[in-house]
């Protein structure tokens, strides 16, 4: 009689009367009986034909849910796999290069939750210059980016607010390079000052093609939190500018910042967006973003978690499907229901902080690995000076932050889906970037898997065994 171990990477997700087995190593998803689900829930259990039929064991083994490897042996295999995948990623997927250009720390808004507030007073006066942009594309480019060409670059304009009138000269210079090298340019903007830039936005190289803009709930809530420096409302201006950008074929990410106050009133906002013909516009991607606390500097008593936000949205009667964080995760995992072969999960590094050739550069020539850390001198990973690029040890530290160096993640059954989560949050909450801060991520992924599985069932139109018709 052979014994089998329950896979370390098996996730057991309860459905109504059954369980889903979801393997976080190979991506296999299977629905099983309640009894089977409960049996496998005990990860220390050694399964044998005394517990279930041989054919069931064979099936579970083939799907990777049970294994004849001991947990230690399985972990070794997992580590080998992650190493290979990470090497592949470094060679292929991560070879593209991204540049966030923080044009100035100045902003015309005064949002209560803004994580740049403590920096702004000290650094807002300096604006990136055209000459600096020339140097970036000139002497600095090859020193910053290895083995990639200027044509491989993607640029995101960032601030402060990148579309302040005083930034126009430098934006124009960036777009000259965009035109020359066919570089995609995006921006993260509050879109209140767009009148200075309307001639520069559009779908082509040499134009700003993608813009992320935020709305803080419906008009009433928005005009309380997302206000200009003198406290003036901005909702109408932003909506007007959204229309102008859509007319110019700019792709928009419309991020709806939510907290507990705004969450339940979302139905009004969605009705409004529908009436305004923004909700279903093909160039508008609208999603919810629960506010979170950066650097523990904001009163977060009204903030809501991802799970809570999703549950509230699902419980209120809104016609449109709102992309809350769980649904967005589900959209990203929908391919699992179609994939037949190949490697389902390849994420070994969480974000730009941990990926080579991804930088944020500010007007002082300082280099950061993460946009949330921009302007905080302790988190600089390097700087540009006199034609040379200087990196410090933090850069190596950030690049080393991948699953292989996150012990907790190597034990985790969903680590290939989350890749260790945010390093900044890890440091803020757990003291080290190598001590991941998971919060409710595992539950969120379980919910997302449930979504893709149950929604597929509702939409099952497989043309199987149609004996009757047609006969061709």
């Amino acid at each position, binding site marked *: 009689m052979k014994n089998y171990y329950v896979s370390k990477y098996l996730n057991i997700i309860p459905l109504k009367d059954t369980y889903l087995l979801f393997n976080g190593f190979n991506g296999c998803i299977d629905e099983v009986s309640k009894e089977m689900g409960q049996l496998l829930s005990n990860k220390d259990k050694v399964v044998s034909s005394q517990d279930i039929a041989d054919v069931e064991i064979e099936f579970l083994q083939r799907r990777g849910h049970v294994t004849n490897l001991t947990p230690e042996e399985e972990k070794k295999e997992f580590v080998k796999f992650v190493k290979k995948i990470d090497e592949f990623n470094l060679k292929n997927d991560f070879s593209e290069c991204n540049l966030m250009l923080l044009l100035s720390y100045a902003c015309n808004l005064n949002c209560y939750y803004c994580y740049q507030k403590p920096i702004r007073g000290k650094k807002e006066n300096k604006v990136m210059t055209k000459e600096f942009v020339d140097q970036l594309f000139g002497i600095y480019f090859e020193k910053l980016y290895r083995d990639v060409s200027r044509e491989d670059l993607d640029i995101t304009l960032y601030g402060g607010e990148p579309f302040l009138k005083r930034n126009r000269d430098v934006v124009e210079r960036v777009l000259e390079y965009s035109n020359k090298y066919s570089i995609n340019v995006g921006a993260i903007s509050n879109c209140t000052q767009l009148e200075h830039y309307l001639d520069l936005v559009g779908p082509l190289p040499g134009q700003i093609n993608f813009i992320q803009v935020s709305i803080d709930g419906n008009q009433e809530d928005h005009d309380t939190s997302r206000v200009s420096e003198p406290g003036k409302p901005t909702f109408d201006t932003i909506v007007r500018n959204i229309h102008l950008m859509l007319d110019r074929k700019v792709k928009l990410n419309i991020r709806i910042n939510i907290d507990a106050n705004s969450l339940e009133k979302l139905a009004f906002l969605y009705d409004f967006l529908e009436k305004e013909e923004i909700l279903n516009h*093909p160039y508008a991607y609208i999603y919810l973003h629960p506010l979170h606390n950066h650097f523990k500097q904001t009163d977060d008593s009204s903030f809501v978690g991802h799970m809570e936000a999703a549950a509230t949205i699902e419980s209120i009667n809104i016609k449109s499907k709102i992309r809350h964080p769980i649904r967005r995760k589900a959209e990203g995992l929908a391919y699992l229901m179609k994939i037949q072969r190949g490697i389902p999960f390849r994420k070994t590094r969480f974000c730009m902080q941990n990926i080579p050739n991804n930088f944020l550069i500010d007007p002082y020539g300082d280099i950061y690995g993460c946009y949330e850390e921009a302007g905080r001198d302790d988190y600089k990973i390097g700087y540009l000076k006199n034609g040379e690029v200087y990196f410090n040890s933090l850069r190596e530290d950030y690049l080393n932050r991948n699953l292989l160096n996150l012990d907790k993640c190597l034990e985790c059954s969903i680590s290939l889906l989350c890749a260790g989560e945010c390093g900044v949050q890890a440091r803020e909450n757990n003291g080290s970037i190598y001590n991941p801060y998971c919060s409710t991520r595992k539950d969120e992924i379980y919910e997302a898997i449930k979504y893709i599985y149950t929604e597929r069932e509702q939409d099952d*139109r497989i043309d199987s065994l149609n004996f009757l018709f047609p006969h061709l």
Partner: protein
Amino acid sequence: MIQEYHKIVKELSRLHIVPFHKWNETTKAILASILGNIPFFITRNGNIFLGEDSQEKIKNNRICFQAHLDHPGGRLYYSQDEEYMYSKLYGHRTSKYLVGRNFGVFLPGMYESIDQLEVEHCHRSGMDGVTLFFKAHNDLIKTYDSGELVIHYDGSPVLKNDTLTNWNLDNILNAALIIYLMKYENYADKYYGLLTLNEEVSHSGLYEFLNIIYDRDLYFISMDAIDSSINSNNGFGIRTKQNGVELDKFIPEGVMHQLDEKYKAEIPFGVCEGVTLVKENRPSISLFIKINHFHNGIPFSKFGAEEIDLSLLKEYTEFIKTIAFKIESEITNEPISANIKTSIKEPDINITNHSDHIRNIILSCDNYVDYLTRGLPELRKIFSTYSLDMPNLDSNSYYRYKEFLSSKKITPIEKKDIIDIREYLSGEIETLFGINKDVFLKDIDNIEIVRILLGNFNACNCFNPNRVIMLSDDRIDEQDILRLITHELTHFMTAGIWRSMNMPHELIKYYDEGLAVYLSAKKFDIDIRQSLGFSNEVYERFLEQKPQLEKWFSDFYKGNFYKIHKGNIHEYFIKNDVPHPFYANGSNVSRYGYFLSALDTKRFIEEGVYYEKLLC
């Protein structure tokens, strides 16, 4: 040279040849005027042969320069009910970078664009191209009714600062060079030229010439343009390998040895016509020349006219002359053998029966779990041999199926019946297409029939790697088996003819299926409804909805998968649900393409206009 050459480029450009080009009286007249005294003929599917005025006069043991005439572009359509225009842009497989670009609208024969359209939306549709959607211009709508409009990158040939720019240097550059050499350097006296269609989509032009028209011993010098960013040691040269195909295998050793290494290059990207020549086993050499902004830069997220340096062009011309001279010397000593296949009288007929084995596997499983764990792996061995989708039986279906199988009879198939069907089809196809049966039978040395159960079809053609006819016996009534074999054998025997057709693959599939239904009906003296396998009720339902089905099919093959949404504030394109004509889709007119194609085919044949309809 340059002035004469530029004139040829300019004249050829005004034909605005994009994939699936159809010649009309105007464009034929322009072509004749470009060619002057060079004898030529146009093949049935639109290729131009230079040097003789008929196929019969083509002489053996000659060199034939070959270049394609088409460049990415498409025909412009107007959606009258929705007030927008669209075009399937054949030859571009990326839908990125095109929104916001301006394309020129052209009337074949005119030099300049008559309008420009800005891309509002772009959708990748199918394997051959992307569909571009535009807001309609009122002036264009009037012109649309009066002629066939074509869209492509807007740019005319311009000679400036030692460079030549044009919308379609790929591959007018080479086509014009062939004409120049024949017209102005007396090459027409001893060399031939072949200008092909549809290199950008299927190589159907070259395929037609090699398999349907041509039966002479020729040596092809195939010439094409590539992008300047592709690595090689020189701006032009000989392709030695592409996608694993040895393109230098037919180059005489004497020629290869004399060539400097800098001229030899593997060009890994794309599939040039040289690949088709080698795959068809025809003596050939493939030349390339580099241009800037290949395919107007679109694959490289740029947008511009194609460009070549004139000094490079002159060097390249001398190189071609040298290559032709050297090959000519070689073939004088050792005449060409074109390796042309001839048809055989009786092909091998193999019938492989897996149905009994599959039935035993299913019936021997104790229960559904046993089926999943023991039965499926066994089935996988069979199904993977033919790259078939694995059966998708849930627990309930499994038990129902097992019951069904216990009483299912699997009727033997007699080889003499297959021979009889083959004879019948040979005669019909020969008559319909006006092609000698030796031509289309030459590639059919064996007919393999494989019988299985649990296929997601009742009968189909598949590749293993050779073409086989698959029958899923559980979906076939005993009395239908020979009809279905006739249907599939029609596909099998006409594959080469369809492959050579100057039409998009969606239309090829349409006419191919229609013919198979029609010839099966004729063979067994049944009507189209029966040949489709429809009940009276179902057939009536399809007939009632025929205008809608025709609209769907038209949208499908033209790539019209979007429609304009006109709101109070914004206008934008949204998905237009077009059911697939040949896949099951849950509607009550599922797979309506078979129905429409069978009726069209029957009508065309009965009116005696079948082949003409296919060519127009």
